[in-house]
């Protein structure tokens, strides 16, 4: 392979721990995705979405003079088909994840000894939406009916998804009028796949409608169910302190990294790691115990519920192994790089696949069975502990940042008024008044083609400066956690005056960690509640808010982007090339076209400065449309503890006078 220009570690990442480990990789000549990204030129035809390989008459490359495939498929249709396949795959991933959780809930309801209903209150709330009677029935009975009702949503025979009624009334009407209200989760995915088969739906606009319907089935269906049912099983997140970055790995403990997306097994591993038997076994091998840390969204799931530290985000999975301190990396589903296998083989690390859906050649497979969950968890930990004595040279960069995570929409509601007055009124008020200019959800992945975390850091810091409240999920959230944006002190340091006041009033960090990427459904709920709370218009599309994935890479990100747009949001996908670039018409349809239809638009913007600029412009435009006051940071910043601190420093006698203030 011809040597391309390879980025230096500083060019490849903005994260200090990652840079240190990339240097380490160079030293020990280990290959990572960063290196491979430099080595491999992305296929330009595929990048523009112009490679049609939907039948064996092709593949047809619609470049240059070629503007039709063998069958006559136009660029517009080919581009949309490629996009549609991605949306279908993304929606399928999240939704299938949701289905697994529903089966776990069913198992818990039917007496599985390991899984319990940890949050019955959430169960009652969900039961209400799913039309399950609560009354004074036993929790297990309700849980069983909820699980079955949830599973029913995947193959619903008629009607539409029950969760759609959680959206603002006006939004529901838009979906119904356009005929894009999803009917059943599986059906929409299957239908989208069907419609992208050769010789099928060949009207770009029509096909894009089904993209929205399929994505909505994910956002308001599979994902939302995944979030809710996981909360019922493992608890609805509330703020918790933890630390982030590879520095959380312990030299004196058995380090087990949990990586992937489903928390069903990881939750049990968390419990098992504290089991005295396991601790004793670890000690028998010379370790102080078992240290768990997470990568990707499994990390987020067990962070927000159990406070388990974050080892890093997507692009740090290989780097974690490079520390030489990881005894086992336990993976479940999604975003697991196959490149882990050769890397793990160079160290003592056991790469353990657990999901019946995911095997990686060369990895150890210990298949998860929810009825034997604890046994398997212990087996995994034993495997890890057994590797501890084989640990070689260890290189753990000493970087870690504190963070506060766990902002479920239920907790945000509580945080804004307590048990008695909880509501979104204070948030809406803050936006109406202009203390908070708007809200940005920066979510999604890392992309090895970009400088790791650079875009996340940049856009978040810019938004904070501009009094924009940032909510995050997924790997974007982990980036901000590592950067220190998720501490309450960050509000004083990075936020504009209005946002700082709000953060100080509530005690929140200026960037809220709302969970895993499947938990973007929480953001939908928040937006809906902001609408119904009144003051910010009567639909999600009226809210001064922007969604973005500034380092996106996965198909799930496209599905999320699409359901956000279909829910009325302005969404910017950042960093890499626009996969719709091959068709100006499709780009028009997904921007102006969708804006007309559903009030949201999907844009692909590579330059982070441009992302920030467009977002702020959009926020200000929405503010103006609502008739809100123009954003003016000079008005804010007068509240807070600063004045009190001056008084506190005085001696007693001076203080009792000083509280009345100085004579003017």
């Amino acid at each position, binding site marked *: 392979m011809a040597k391309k220009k390879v980025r230096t570690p500083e060019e490849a990442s903005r994260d200090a721990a990652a840079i240190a480990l990339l240097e380490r990789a160079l030293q020990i000549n280990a290959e990572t995705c960063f290196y491979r990204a430099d080595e491999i030129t992305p296929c330009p035809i595929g990048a523009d979405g112009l490679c049609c390989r939907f039948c064996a008459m092709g593949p047809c490359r619609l470049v240059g003079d070629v503007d039709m495939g063998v069958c006559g498929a136009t660029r517009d249709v080919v581009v949309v088909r490629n996009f549609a396949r991605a949306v279908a795959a993304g929606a399928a991933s999240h939704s299938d994840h949701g289905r697994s959780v529903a089966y776990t809930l069913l198992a818990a309801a039917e007496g599985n000894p390991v899984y319990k209903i940890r*949050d019955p209150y959430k169960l009652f709330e969900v039961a209400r939406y799913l039309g399950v009677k609560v009354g004074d029935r036993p929790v297990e009975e309700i849980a069983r009916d909820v699980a079955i009702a949830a599973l029913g949503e995947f193959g619903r025979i008629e009607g539409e998804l029950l969760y759609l009624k*959680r959206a603002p009334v006006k939004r529901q009407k838009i979906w119904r009028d356009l005929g894009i209200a999803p009917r059943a989760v599986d059906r929409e995915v299957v239908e989208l796949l069907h419609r992208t088969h050769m010789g099928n739906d060949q009207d770009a606009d029509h096909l894009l409608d089904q993209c929205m319907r399929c994505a909505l089935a994910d956002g308001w269906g599979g994902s939302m169910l995944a979030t809710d049912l996981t909360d019922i099983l493992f*608890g*609805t997140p509330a703020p*918790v302190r933890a630390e982030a970055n590879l520095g959380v790995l312990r030299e004196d403990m058995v380090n087990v990294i949990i990586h992937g997306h489903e928390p069903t097994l990881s939750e049990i591993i968390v419990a098992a790691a504290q089991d005295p038997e396991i601790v004793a076994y670890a000690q028998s091998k010379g370790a102080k115990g078992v240290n768990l840390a997470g990568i990707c969204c499994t990390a987020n799931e067990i962070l927000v519920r159990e*406070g388990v530290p974050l080892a890093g985000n997507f692009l740090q999975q290989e780097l974690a192994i490079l520390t030489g301190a990881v005894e086992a990396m336990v993976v479940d589903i999604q975003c697991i790089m196959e490149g882990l296998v050769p890397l793990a083989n160079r160290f003592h690390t056991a790469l353990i696949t657990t999901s019946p859906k995911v095997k990686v050649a060369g990895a150890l497979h210990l298949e998860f069975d929810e009825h034997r969950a604890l046994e398997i968890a212990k087996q995994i930990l034993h495997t890890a502990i057994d590797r501890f004595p084989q640990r070689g040279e260890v290189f753990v960069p000493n970087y870690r940042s504190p963070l*506060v995570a766990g902002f479920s929409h239920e907790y945000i509601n509580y945080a804004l008024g307590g048990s008695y007055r909880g*509501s*979104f009124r204070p948030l809406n008020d803050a936006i109406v008044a202009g203390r908070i200019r708007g809200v940005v959800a920066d979510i999604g992945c890392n992309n090895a083609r970009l400088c790791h975390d650079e875009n996340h850091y940049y856009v978040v810091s810019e938004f904070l400066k501009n009094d924009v409240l940032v909510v995050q999920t997924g790997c974007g959230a982990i980036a901000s956690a590592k950067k220190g944006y998720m501490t309450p002190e960050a509000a004083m340091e990075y936020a504009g005056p209005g946002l700082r006041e709000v953060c100080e009033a509530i005690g929140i960090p200026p960037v809220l960690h709302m969970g895993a990427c499947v938990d973007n459904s929480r953001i939908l709920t928040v937006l809906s509640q902001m609408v119904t709370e009144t003051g910010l218009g009567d639909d999600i599309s009226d809210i001064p808010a922007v969604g973005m994935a500034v380092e996106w890479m996965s198909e799930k990100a496209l599905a999320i982007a699409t359901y956000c747009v279909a829910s009325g949001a302005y969404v910017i996908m950042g960093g890499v090339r626009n996969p719709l670039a091959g068709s100006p018409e499709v780009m028009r349809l997904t921007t102006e076209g969708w804006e007309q239809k559903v009030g949201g638009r999907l844009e692909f913007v590579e330059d982070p400065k441009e992302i920030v600029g467009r977002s702020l412009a959009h926020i200000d435009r929405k503010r103006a449309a609502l008739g809100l006051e123009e954003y003016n940071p000079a008005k804010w910043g007068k509240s807070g503890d600063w004045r009190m601190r001056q008084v506190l420093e005085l001696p007693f006698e001076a203080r009792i006078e000083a509280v009345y203030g100085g004579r003017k």
Partner: protein
Amino acid sequence: MEKVVLDVPLMWADHHVMKVREVLTKLDGVTDVYASSAWKQVLVAYDPAKVKRETLEQALAQAGYPVGQGETPILVPPTEKRRDPRWGDLGFRMSQTYRADLEMSGDFRKW
């Protein structure tokens, strides 16, 4: 005449102030008392010829306000990871705007 500032951690509200003042002002030789529940401190001006500082402290201790001792009870101590220990049993998970919030926020004081 001497002045002393005493820390009285258990004087955390103004009904304690009444008691603390009562105890101190009764002592012969105490000329002025400033009892502050905000700062949990008392400033006592007294005549050392008539009353000793120890006497002040004894009197306070007897009344249940020992100087420099005691702490207000925290009935709910924080957890290790600061997850609110109450969160699990608060008893509701709101995911919708409460109906009354909208109904009651309507027109009021029209006239």
